[in-house]
């Protein structure tokens, strides 16, 4: 049994050729070695993401070179770059469109915390609005750092398991710093998400818990 592989049991005299292993571990092993990223590349980190996919730092070694641009076919959302408040509902809609099991890597300082851009337009960390699994610091992170993040995510997938949606166990409330929505005095909240004619809003999609958007 190779190191890093899943434990299997092989019969001493394999007349019938059975290999026994846990279903959970088999499923996790398959899923972690073929993570298909959804490259949500907004800014400079997107270029380093492309460089990670290029030949020198090859993300294909980890089974993750299939950058499918349709969220319906991906299981890993890599948010590479700063997310602006105009883009945030788009990102949330894409997250909702991804089928489970799915994970999220927040790549770079801007996606993790707003980075250098502490301004009126940039969301100070996507984990305020989206559940994140792995954070990659750096501005921009080196491709090796992103590969390390993918490897850490693979460990996480193997550890938490994915059968029966176990990756959701115990994660019922938003993680990361609490959104400041609701903590701000209403008189200081100028932009009310009330004009839904623009198609970049995620409010019209039904949510699992049946909670309305507002």
């Amino acid at each position: 049994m190779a190191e890093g592989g899943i434990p299997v049991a092989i019969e001493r005299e394999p007349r019938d050729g059975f290999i026994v292993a846990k279903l959970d571990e088999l499923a996790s092993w398959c899923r972690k070695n073929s993570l298909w990223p959804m490259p949500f590349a907004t800014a400079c980190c997107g270029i380093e993401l492309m460089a990670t996919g290029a030949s020198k730092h090859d993300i294909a070694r980890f089974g993750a070179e299939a950058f499918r641009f349709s969220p319906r076919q991906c299981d890993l959302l890599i948010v590479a770059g700063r997310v602006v408040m105009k883009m945030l509902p788009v990102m949330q809609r894409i997250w909702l469109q991804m089928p489970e099991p799915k994970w999220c890597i927040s790549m770079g300082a801007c996606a993790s915390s707003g980075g250098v851009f502490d301004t009126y337009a940039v969301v100070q960390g996507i984990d305020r609005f989206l559940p994140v699994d792995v954070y990659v610091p750096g501005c921009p992170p080196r491709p090796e750092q992103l590969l390390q993040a993918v490897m850490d995510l693979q460990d996480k997938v193997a550890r938490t398991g994915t059968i029966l949606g176990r990756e959701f166990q115990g994660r019922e409330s938003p993680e990361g710093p609490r959104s400041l929505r609701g903590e701000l005095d209403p008189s200081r909240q100028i932009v009310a998400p009330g004009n839904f004619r623009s198609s970049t809003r995620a409010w019209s999609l039904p949510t699992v818990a049946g909670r309305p958007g507002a």
Partner: protein
Amino acid sequence: MALAKSVAGCDSLIVSGFRDNVRLEVPPAASLEALRKLRSHAGLDLLVDLSAADYLNYPNAVHRYGIWYVLESVETGIRLVVKTWADDPDPRVDSVFDVWRGADWMEREVFDLFGIVFEGHPDLRRILMPDEFSSHPLRKDYPLRGDGERHNFHALSREES
């Protein structure tokens, strides 16, 4: 310099220079005519830049908003900066959309970030901020970190994804 002044044909002009920029200040009522003449007669056919600044609390400022047009001639390489101004309330300037089509988006950006209305522009709406945003961010009285708009979104948790 003298050529530009004569071509623009306006009486109340101020001409100045700083480093290698030659600057011409024109009152807003005459700006469209002056710019049109500069393009047709002085051959300044390339609009390099169009933008504005908010001079609230600037030393020795007379008007609140200054709008500049950086013009250049492709043939001769002469560069000229034309400046005009606008004031609160209701800052308005004539649009140069018909003179240079490149002014299309540049004027929309100035409208979005400063609130200066360009009369005669066919499609003046916000370009960088969301449509429902209600402030003009680059004004000096708008804070750097905003008024809470960037936090005003719904947080998705794992269970509802």
